[in-house]
């Protein structure tokens, strides 16, 4: 009787398990996806290159949205910055632009993000602390003073009041003599992930969705270089989700915006090419690369097959990436430089279109100029020294990576089904489904850390003493005092009758169904403040209260 010879794979398996030291079992990604010690062609049985990958710049865009990727154009180095007053932030922007940065990314302070003016009692202690304070068009003019808006693109991280800041940016452009069509940039404006994760919601979901759709419609008709929404997984991940949850919830939000815009009467190919995405790049290197590749493939299929988009630009998922703030540690702060570098490389190997690298000290406070410069240089080293830009999607065909990319896709598809079964994204927000999934994942991560099943260098291994204190950026009380005084002077100087009338026009429009961008533009040009506009809209729309769960 013939004895079947062991395959090479079986021989390896025997050697693997047969040594003196038993190999570690139960390895998973940081998100809990089980991992094999070795992947071989068997893991890709039935896998088709043409179906799964195709070519760069071609459906399903797994290998990247552009035919030449980084050989054609480097990703945009876009460092998120903003602190204190508009004047101080303007100086930081000019510095960043002089250092080779191509685009600006505005960080607003908490009162601005939550729709309060700097003189509101609830803003006490918050003005200028985690971003720049913007109350009116006057501050926005100062923020971009001396910067030609048609020479750069600007990303604005703002959500509930996004339409107002968008109107202010358009108005600043007009003062520079630029038409809206000449302005390029991105508004984060992703309200759904606010309810799900970052929690900077103000109005209830329905009127919030209307505001988002109004900006999408306005951009589609007037601003061909503008991304009205940056559909964001970053905050979902930072709130503790797994990679699959980040991928699934973000694309589910994207589908909700597509459906709302189609419902508003916009043909899909008129707005879909300007939808953009924003993901986290966490510390688990291969899982992140797989996530980015799966995101492109999923979105291309969804747009073509589910929504019938015909313009290939509608199929392309273009995205910004930020390295993971949650992966930074207070202990041994300098180690954060290397964490950020690995995360940045994962984003680039995953084909990101723009990138923010965190500064090592962001776990302590806003970054100092020195720390921000190291973060910028980290990207420049990656771009110009490591050689990663030379070959497109260089990890394609790896048994491991392709299997993991498929796994991400499968996991996301399962979540899409669960969300559909529960009545869609808005219903899942109201029931707390997303919030509970994320809280559970966050708790599970902490549990593993606590049990030493996961190691974080300096936190539960390789510990040292506290080490020398790192200098941090301080925002003094004079920032708030100065901002409040400027606001009082503006309110005394402007034409208050006109301001009141513009606000009344806005409220009338908000009660009806017209697009709110024109009345918002009239408000900001009359120097009505952000807080005044938001208060007027709250009168019409009401405010949201979330289900409390932990």
């Amino acid at each position: 009787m013939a004895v079947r010879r062991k395959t090479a794979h079986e021989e390896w398996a025997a050697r693997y398990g047969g040594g003196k030291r038993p190999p570690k079992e139960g390895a998973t990604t940081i998100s809990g996806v089980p991992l094999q010690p070795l992947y071989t062609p068997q893991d890709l049985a039935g896998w088709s290159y043409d179906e799964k990958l195709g070519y760069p710049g071609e459906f399903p865009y797994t290998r990247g949205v552009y035919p030449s990727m980084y050989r054609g154009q480097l990703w945009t180095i876009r460092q998120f910055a903003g602190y204190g007053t508009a004047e101080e932030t303007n100086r930081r922007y000019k510095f960043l632009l002089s250092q080779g940065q191509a685009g600006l990314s505005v960080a607003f302070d908490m009162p601005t993000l939550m729709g309060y003016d700097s003189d509101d009692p609830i803003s006490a202690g918050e003005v200028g602390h985690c971003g720049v304070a913007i109350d009116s068009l006057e501050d926005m003019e100062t923020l971009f003073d001396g910067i030609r808006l048609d020479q750069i693109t600007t990303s604005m991280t703002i959500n509930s009041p996004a339409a107002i800041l968008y109107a202010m940016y358009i108005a600043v452009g007009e003062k520079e003599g630029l038409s809206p069509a000449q302005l390029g940039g991105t508004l984060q404006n992703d309200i759904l992930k606010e309810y799900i994760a970052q929690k900077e919601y103000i109005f209830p979901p329905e009127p919030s969705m209307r505001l988002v759709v109004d900006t999408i419609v306005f951009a589609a008709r007037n601003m061909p270089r503008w991304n009205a929404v940056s559909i964001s997984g970053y905050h979902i991940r930072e709130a503790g989700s797994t990679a699959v949850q980040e991928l699934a919830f973000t694309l589910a939000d994207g589908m909700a915006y597509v459906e709302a815009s189609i419902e508003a009467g916009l043909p899909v190919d008129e707005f879909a090419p300007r939808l953009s995405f924003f993901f986290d790049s966490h510390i688990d290197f291969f899982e992140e690369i797989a996530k980015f590749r799966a995101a492109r493939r999923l979105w291309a299929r969804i747009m073509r097959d589910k929504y019938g988009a015909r313009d290939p630009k509608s199929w392309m998922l273009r995205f910004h990436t930020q390295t993971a703030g949650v992966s930074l540690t207070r202990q041994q702060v300098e180690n954060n430089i290397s964490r950020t570098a690995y995360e940045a490389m994962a984003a680039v190997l995953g084909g990101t279109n723009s990138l923010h690298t965190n500064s090592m000290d962001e776990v302590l406070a806003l970054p100092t100029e020195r720390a921000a410069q190291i973060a910028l240089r980290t990207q420049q080293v990656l771009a110009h020294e490591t050689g990663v830009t030379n070959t497109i999607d260089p990890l394609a065909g790896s048994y491991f990576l392709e299997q993991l990319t498929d796994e991400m896709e499968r996991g996301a598809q399962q979540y899409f089904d669960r969300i559909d079964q529960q009545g869609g994204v808005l219903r899942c927000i109201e029931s707390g489904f997303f919030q509970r999934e994320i809280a559970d994942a966050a708790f599970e991560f902490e549990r593993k850390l606590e049990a030493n099943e996961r190691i974080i260098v300096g936190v539960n291994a390789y510990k040292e003493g506290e080490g020398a204190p790192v200098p941090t950026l301080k925002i003094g009380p004079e920032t708030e005092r100065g901002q409040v005084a400027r606001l009082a002077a503006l309110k005394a100087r402007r034409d208050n009758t006109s301001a009141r009338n513009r606000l009344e026009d806005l409220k009338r429009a908000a009660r009806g169904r017209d697009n709110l961008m024109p009345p918002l533009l009239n408000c900001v040009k009359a120097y009505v403040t952000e807080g005044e506009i938001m208060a007027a809209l709250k009168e019409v729309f009401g405010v949201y209260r979330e289900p409390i769960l932990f």
Partner: protein
Amino acid sequence: MPAQASTRKQAPETAKRWRVLTAKVGLDGHDRGVKVVSRALRDAGVEVIYAGLRQTPEMVVEAAIQEDVDAIGVSLHSGAHMTLIPRILELLKERNASDIVVFGGGIIPQDDADALKKMGVVEIFGPGTSLQAIIDFVNHGFKAA
């Protein structure tokens, strides 16, 4: 640290069941940390009342007195800690409720944490603190290690 994980939930039967109000103070919505800590304390036998997001110092102090808690745990990531935490201490004093312990966590630089402790905050837990350290802190009657 995890080495003591086995002692969790094993506070002596006679030990007091502590009541803690947790809250996000200030305008930011970063609730990952406060939710994880609230759940860990609850699992360890502490009675936890999580007040939710955007609580003003007035709301926190009112709730703490109404709920008759032993301690308030506040979480801040917005940079407003040097305004809002001292205000909580001040309000507790005004209401003759300074026996309620105040501790906190979030993104709070070390020198600010030191200053807050001088004002009467019992402990500030920075990023990377183990859950067990916070559980031990509560179960030992809010004594800083």
